[in-house]
């Protein structure tokens, strides 16, 4: 077997498409392993099913940050500065009266050609009874100082710049009638507003009234782009689904393809060996099975029983075992059965099961391998199909589910192409990788096709 494997690999080298396919598969395997290590199963599920409490920091429906490379006008990235994580300069100064002054200074560069979508401050104060009082100021690169607001912060206070009436009124007077995220970043007197590039400063001056009081705050400028994969309608980072989609797709495709081909092969072999009614039964079952519409039945199982990916996998295998390929295998086994070496095996007293499993089945492996590899993408896409129909696994993030989210939220109508293109691209890559290797293997193992 070792030499055959080596021979096959040497043959494969002659096909550039097979090499490309192999490297895609290898990359996918490495990527899947990386995903499984960095984001464990449980964590992926918690993250993907998490709501606003996990994802409040990210903008909704933001394309990935790398699209800026292809744009002359750069879109602003999402900026998250948390004072507790060193995002701001923090100065604490106790006063004589027992009060504490805490100054938080956020300094950041703004270089984009467009405005962010929203601005927000999430406060996490520490106090016993009397809430600390903050005054917030905003300094633009050209030195203007704008007062944002003065208020007491209790636990869970969120200051959303656009929704604050007083700030809006003040900005209307000082800058013009624009939402806060535009007014604060625009060049004065520009119409339509043009963002002013440079270093901005947001300063929170706090007076805390109790000993041991403290204040941390998270400043978020919701940009128009985020991360390497972008976000969806629930602010979730698509990166998680795109990464987890790889192991799921590989596992589903491989298991389904292996499960069906191996079982089909063994059944066909037993049918041919025992012939008679066994063979007839297998033939009839195959005919009935060909008449059963696979996808509608899978849809029914998904709606009525369970949408778990493993149940779907089982049903898929079950329904595909008696597929059209059983006839192909049968034809080959019929020829093999007459071979002298089978007769020899019988002569030395080998049992039926032994002959089938040790002598008949191995003979067909060269035919099986290309078929198995070409079958993998079929099942990968089947899983995606089910997900697109809304029957994806309820907990696992997969590529198909991302496409379904995008479809049901009208991503293509709204121009959110990244949302569809990223999972679709990965699906295509996976499909092509296996298909290219499969086609090359087909030519290597079927000498009739060689050179065609």
């Amino acid at each position, binding site marked *: 077997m070792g030499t055959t494997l080596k021979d096959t690999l040497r043959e494969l080298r002659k096909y550039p*498409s097979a090499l490309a*396919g192999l490297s895609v598969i290898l990359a996918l395997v490495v990527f899947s392993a990386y995903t499984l290590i960095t984001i464990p199963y449980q964590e992926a599920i918690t993250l993907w099913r998490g709501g606003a409490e996990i994802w409040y920091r990210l903008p909704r429906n933001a394309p990935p940050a790398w699209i800026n490379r292809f744009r002359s006008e750069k879109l602003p990235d999402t900026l998250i500065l948390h004072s507790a994580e060193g995002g701001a300069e923090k100065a604490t100064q106790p006063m004589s009266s027992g009060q504490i002054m805490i100054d938080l200074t956020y300094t950041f560069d703004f270089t984009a050609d467009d405005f962010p979508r929203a601005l927000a401050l999430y406060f996490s104060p520490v106090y016993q009874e009397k809430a600390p009082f903050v005054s917030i100021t905003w300094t633009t690169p050209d030195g203007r100082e704008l007062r944002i607001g003065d208020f007491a912060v209790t636990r869970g206070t969120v200051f959303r710049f656009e929704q604050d009436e007083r700030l809006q009124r003040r900005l209307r007077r000082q800058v013009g009638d624009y939402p806060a995220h535009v007014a604060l970043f625009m060049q004065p007197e520009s119409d339509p507003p043009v963002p002013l590039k440079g270093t901005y400063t947001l300063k929170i001056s706090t007076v805390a009234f109790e000993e041991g009081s403290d204040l941390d705050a998270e400043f978020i400028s919701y940009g128009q782009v985020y991360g390497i994969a972008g976000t969806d309608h629930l602010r979730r980072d698509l990166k998680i689904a795109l990464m987890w989609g790889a192991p799921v797709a590989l596992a589903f495709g491989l298991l389904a393809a292996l499960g069906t081909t191996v079982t089909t092969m063994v059944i066909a072999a037993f049918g041919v060996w025992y012939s008679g009614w066994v063979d007839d039964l297998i*033939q*009839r079952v195959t*005919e*009935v099975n*060909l*008449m*059963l*519409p*696979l*996808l*509608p*039945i899978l*849809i*029914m*199982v*998904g*709606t*009525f*029983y369970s949408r778990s990916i493993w149940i779907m996998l089982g049903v898929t295998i079950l329904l595909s075992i008696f597929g*059209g*390929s059983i*006839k*192909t295998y*049968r*034809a080959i086994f019929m020829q093999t059965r007459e071979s002298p070496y089978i007769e020899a095996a019988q002569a030395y007293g080998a049992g039926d099961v032994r002959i089938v499993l040790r002598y008949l089945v191995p003979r067909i492996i060269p*035919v099986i391998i*290309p*078929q198995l590899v*070409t079958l993998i*993408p*079929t099942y990968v*896409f089947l899983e995606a*199909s089910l997900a*697109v*129909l*809304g029957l994806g696994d309820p907990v696992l993030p997969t590529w198909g589910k991302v*496409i379904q989210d995008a*479809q049901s939220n009208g991503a*293509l*109508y709204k*121009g959110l*192409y990244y949302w*569809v*293109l990223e999972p*679709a691209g990965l*699906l*295509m890559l996976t*499909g*092509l990788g296996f*298909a*290219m290797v*499969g*086609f090359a293997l*087909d030519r290597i193992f*079927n000498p*009739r*096709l060689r050179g*065609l």
Partner: protein
Amino acid sequence: MAQSTAALETPSAETAGGTTSTLARVTKYTLVRGVTLFITVMIGVYLTVLIANMGGYVDEIRRGEIRERVSIAVMNDPALRNLPGEEKRKLIEERIRLEEKRLGLDQPFLVRSFRFLRNAITLQLGRAQYMTSDSGSRQVRLIILERLPPTLLLFGTSNLLLFFISLAVALNLSRRYGSLLDRIFVALSPTSAAPGWFYGIFLILIFAALLRWLPFGGMVDAPPPEAPLDYGRSVLEHMVLPVFAILLSAIFVSVYSWRTFFLIYSSEDYVEMARAKGLPDRLIERRYILRPTLPTIITSFALTLITLWTGAPIFETVFNWPGLGRTLFQAIGLFDTAVIVGSTVIFAYLLAVTVFLLDIIYALVDPRVRIEGSGGGS
């Protein structure tokens, strides 16, 4: 499809007796195939009924709904407001019993399943629980009949196009084996790993969302144009993307496998012989390559058709095509057992009819059935 080049076993033709007339033999073959297929469809439909009803699981859901509906109706009935609680409960139970009897839920599942099978086979598909046809009817048969033509239109057109285009291209390529075009088709054949709906999404993205040339989905403009000519034009416009998506997803691999198939056949001795005799290329193609391979081509076409049919639910959902597939998907969302079983039955029928029609053609072109009267044997 990749394996269609490998030995595609031909459907077994039952041995005919001593009859010599071609017509009689073909008729007999067709009849035997018809009966076999009918039994096959019966079993298939029964399995579908079993799966759809999940051994009565769906009935439980329906029972729960009936209970809730009846309880609410009784509770809200002003005429019954003054009835004591005990009597009210009795009334509710009585009405639930009647309602279940009316819907036939009181019989054991086995009996009901066979009744369902009989009705399904005779296309008495019952009444939908929630869905209605566009004309407002609750008859499953009407709902399905209304949705069948769009499906047939879409898949019929694209399959025929696919069949003839790929045959023509494959023949052409096998003649110019090794040319640039040939190599392009071979290189592109792995792209067929992706199903039609997948290309559909890309096509919608490019031609509907970006370029705005063609509609996103649906079958006609809303509101539908009055004049028949405009209506037809609108339907054509809506068909371009789905048909193109099916073609794109299947054409490369089908051209590839048929081209390979033709190449293998064109190296047969009798073809070489014909060439040596100096027969013209077209004649060789028609008589020496196409003719003997026709049965195999038809069998593999049947397999392609079945695959495409089966994919209809998702394909039609992506393109918002008001056909049978999307109906099935909608019915499943609404838990409408009658419609689910109805459409799956129709799907099974469509598969059977496809296989049957191709079988007849097969019998007509396969000399083993037509002349010798004995099939390939099973």
